[in-house]
C-alpha cells in the first residue's frame, strides 16, 4: 500500500512494540529457568542450570507431556472429522437449522471453559459413570474435542468456500464416484486447511487447563495439570519454566512446517 514514510515507521514501531509485549514475558520465562531463586526473585540473585538438569530426568513431566500429546491428538482427530462433516453440510447444502448449527459449533469455545467443564463433568457423572466407565483420558479427549471442532470447521469451511464445488463436479464428470472424488480430489485440496486447523486445535487442547480440570480422571494428568500441581510447590516451580521454554522452542517446528506446506496455511489458519 502507498503509505507515507512516517506512517510506515509508525506501523513498524507498533509491530516492534507488539512483538516486545509478546516476547518479553517469554524471555522472562527463559531467564527464570536459569534463576537460582525458587520463587523467581527479580533480578535473579544467582544463576543455575540445576532446573534444566532436574527437568531432564523429571518423569512426571515426561509422562504428563505424553498424556497431553495423546489427548491433543485424540481431540484433534475427532475435531477434524466432526468439523469437516459440519463444514461440508453447511457449505454444500441448504437445510433447516443450518444457521443454528453454525452457531452451535461456536458455542463450546465461546462459553467459558468452566461452564463446558462442569457441564461435561456433570453429564459424565450422571450418565456415563453409572455404566461403569470412569473419567480418564477419554473424557479429556471428549471435552477438548468439543471446543476444538470449531477450529477445524472454520478452516475447512473457508477452504471449501474458496475452492467451490466445481472441482468435485469435474471429478464426478470424469467418472469418479463420491468416494473416489473424496480420496483423489477433495481430501488433497482440504489437506492443508486440515493441517492448519489441526495445528490450532492441537494447540488449544495442549494448553487447556480449565476444561481438563473437570474432565480428567484420577490417573490422568496432562501437562497443564502437571504444571498446575507443581507451580504451587516452591521446590518445583522453576522446573516448570524449563518445560515451558522447551515447549516454546519445540512449537516453532510444527508451526514453521505448516507455514511451508502451502501459501494458504501461511495466514496461520483460522481460529
Amino acid at each position, binding site marked *: 500500500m502507498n503509505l507515507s514514510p512516517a506512517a510506515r515507521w509508525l506501523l513498524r514501531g507498533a509491530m516492534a512494540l507488539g512483538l516486545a509485549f509478546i516476547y518479553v514475558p517469554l524471555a522472562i520465562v527463559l531467564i527464570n529457568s536459569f534463576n537460582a531463586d525458587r520463587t523467581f526473585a*527479580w533480578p535473579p540473585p544467582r544463576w543455575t542450570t540445576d532446573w534444566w538438569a532436574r527437568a531432564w530426568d523429571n518423569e512426571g513431566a515426561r509422562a504428563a507431556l505424553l498424556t497431553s500429546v495423546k489427548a491433543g491428538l485424540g481431540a484433534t482427530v475427532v475435531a477434524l472429522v466432526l468439523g469437516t462433516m459440519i463444514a461440508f453440510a453447511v457449505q454444500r447444502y441448504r437445510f433447516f437449522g443450518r444457521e443454528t448449527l453454525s452457531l452451535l459449533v*461456536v458455542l463450546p469455545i*465461546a462459553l467459558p471453559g468452566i461452564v463446558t467443564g462442569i457441564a461435561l463433568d*456433570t*453429564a459424565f457423572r450422571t450418565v456415563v459413570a453409572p455404566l461403569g466407565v470412569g473419567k480418564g483420558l477419554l473424557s479429556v479427549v471428549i471435552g477438548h474435542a468439543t471446543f476444538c471442532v470449531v477450529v477445524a470447521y472454520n478452516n475447512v469451511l473457508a477452504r471449501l468456500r474458496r475452492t467451490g464445488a466445481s472441482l468435485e463436479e469435474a471429478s464426478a464428470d470424469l467418472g469418479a464416484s463420491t468416494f473416489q472424488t473424496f480420496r483423489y480430489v477433495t481430501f488433497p485440496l482440504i489437506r492443508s486447511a486440515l493441517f492448519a486447523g489441526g495445528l490450532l486445535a492441537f494447540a488449544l487442547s495442549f494448553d487447556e487447563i480449565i476444561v481438563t480440570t473437570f474432565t480428567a480422571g484420577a490417573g490422568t494428568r496432562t501437562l497443564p495439570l502437571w504444571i498446575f500441581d507443581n507451580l504451587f510447590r516452591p521446590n518445583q516451580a522453576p522446573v516448570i519454566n524449563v518445560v515451558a521454554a522447551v515447549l516454546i522452542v519445540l512449537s516453532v517446528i510444527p508451526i514453521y512446517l505448516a507455514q511451508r506446506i502451502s501459501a494458504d496455511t501461511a495466514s496461520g489458519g483460522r481460529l
Partner: protein
Amino acid sequence: MSLLSTDAGRSGSSGPARRLAAWLHRHPSARLSALLSAPVLWLGVAYLGSLAVLFLSAFWTVNSFTGEVVRQPTLDNFRTIVTDAVYRTVTLRSIGVAVAVTLVDAAIALPMAFFMAKVAAPRWRRLLVVAILTPLWASYLVKAYAWRVMLANGGPVDWLLGGDGNGPGYGLTATILVLSYLWLPYMILPIYAGLERLPDSLLDASADLGARAGRTFRSVVLPIVVPAVVAGSIFTFSLSLGDYIAVQIVGGKTQLIGNLVYANIGAANNLPFSAALATIPVLIMVVYLVAVRRSGALEEL
C-alpha cells in the same frame, strides 16, 4: 492410440461403493443426514444435553453439611444471585474486565495485523505469523506466572516505571493486562486473516479520492475489518469472562465471575449454585453471539 479411435464407453465396473455413491447421489437428503448425524449427536445431543442438565440443576439445592444434592425445584439460587449485591458487583466487574481486555487487544492487534497483512514483505509475513502463533504453545499458566514475577513489588514492571510500587502491582489492572497478553494472538489472527482478504485496490481507491493514510484507515479499513475484530472479540471476551486462574495469580484480591463459579463447584461443592452462577456468563455470551452473528463475524472466525 489416437483421439479418433472409439472407446468401449464408460466401463461397467460398479462395485458396492460405486452403487452406494450413485444411490447417495440420487438421495441428497440421505447424504446430508449422513454428514450431520455424528456432529448433531455430539454437539446437539451430548453437549447441549450436558448444558441442559447443568442448568436444570441450577433449580436444585445442596444440603449444606453433607453436600448431597436436593432435587426439589426452587428459585432460591437465583433469588440469592439477584438479591445479594455482591453478585451484581462481580458480574459488572467481570463484564468490565472482558470489555477492557477486548478493547486493549483490538487496539494492539489492529496496527500489528495491518502491518503484517499490508506493509510487511511477503517473506516477512510468514515469519511474523510464526511469531504470533508460537506463544500459543507456551503454557498459559507459565505465562501468567511470568507476569506475576514481572508485576511483583520491585519487579521488571516497577523497574521500568521508575521504582518500587510504581507498577500496577497485583489487582484489577494487572488482571486486564495479563488477560490481554494471554489472548492477544486470538485477536491478531482473525484480524490478519480479514485484512489479507481486503483488496489493496480499496486502499488505492481511497487515496485516489483524496484520503490520507489516517483517513483511509478510519473510513475504509476499520469498517471493513470490524467483523474480523468482532470474531477476535469472541475469544478475548469469552476467555476473559470465564477465566479464574490468571485472576488468582495476578488479580490480588480481585474476584471475577469465574472465581465464584469455581469456588462454588471446585471448593464449596455446591453444583446447583455454581450452575445458577454459570447462567450469567452463558446468557451474556449467547446474547453476544446472536448479536455478533448479524455482523457476519462468525464467518470470519
